[in-house]
């Protein structure tokens, strides 16, 4: 079945460590890609998005993601995490065919815990 997969369910890092969260999707055609973050007690917030163009996308708070079409991947990275990055991270895709309606398909989320 077509889906969005986040392979890391729970990641624990120390402050200043580098972060990479994996996201793979199984939709063909043109897709729009997103990473959202949900800090404890808060709502989902957009970190970054990719529609077309440069496959390396920079978002807020020092996050970036790279779209690799051949691997159907859109991994999230940050060179040096902070304690305040502790949150749940969601990868999401608008599949080809839903570009007008904007239906988002989410991965299962990755909980990131950063130890001070």
């Amino acid at each position, binding site marked *: 079945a077509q889906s969005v997969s986040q392979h890391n369910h729970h990641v624990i890092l120390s402050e200043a460590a580098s972060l990479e969260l994996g996201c793979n999707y199984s939709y063909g055609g043109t897709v*729009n890609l997103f990473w959202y973050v949900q800090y404890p007690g808060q*709502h*989902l917030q957009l970190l970054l998005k990719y529609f077309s163009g440069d496959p390396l996308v920079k978002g807020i708070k020092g996050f970036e993601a790279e779209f690799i079409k051949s691997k159907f991947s859109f991994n999230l990275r940050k060179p040096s995490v902070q304690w305040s990055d502790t949150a749940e991270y969601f990868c999401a895709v608008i599949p080809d065919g839903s570009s007008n309606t*904007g239906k988002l398909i989410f991965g299962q*989320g990755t909980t990131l815990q950063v130890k001070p």
Partner: protein
Amino acid sequence: EPEVTQTPSHQVTQMGQEVILRCVPISNHLYFYWYRQILGQKVEFLVSFYNNEISEKSEIFDDQFSVERPDGSNFTLKIRSTKLEDSAMYFCASRGAGAQFFGPGTRLTVL
């Protein structure tokens, strides 16, 4: 910064009762959405709404569900006869600048 708001934050209801979840999207947005997240599961798309009609809906969005934009600001999700399995967090979103902006969610508990 404009935000999507949702009320109530938590709704407890008895099985078989009707519930209405309310959302106020960002004012200049034209596309509206409902998603839900059952505890421990993925965030799932329910329905998208544009120009006063449903533009896409999922298999979950059966005849028990309906959406409405009763005035220029509110966007509601109605569940006619709630089931235990409807217990979930329900998120409203509106779209602008190519991305969806989410509300804080309503936690629905069906007893």
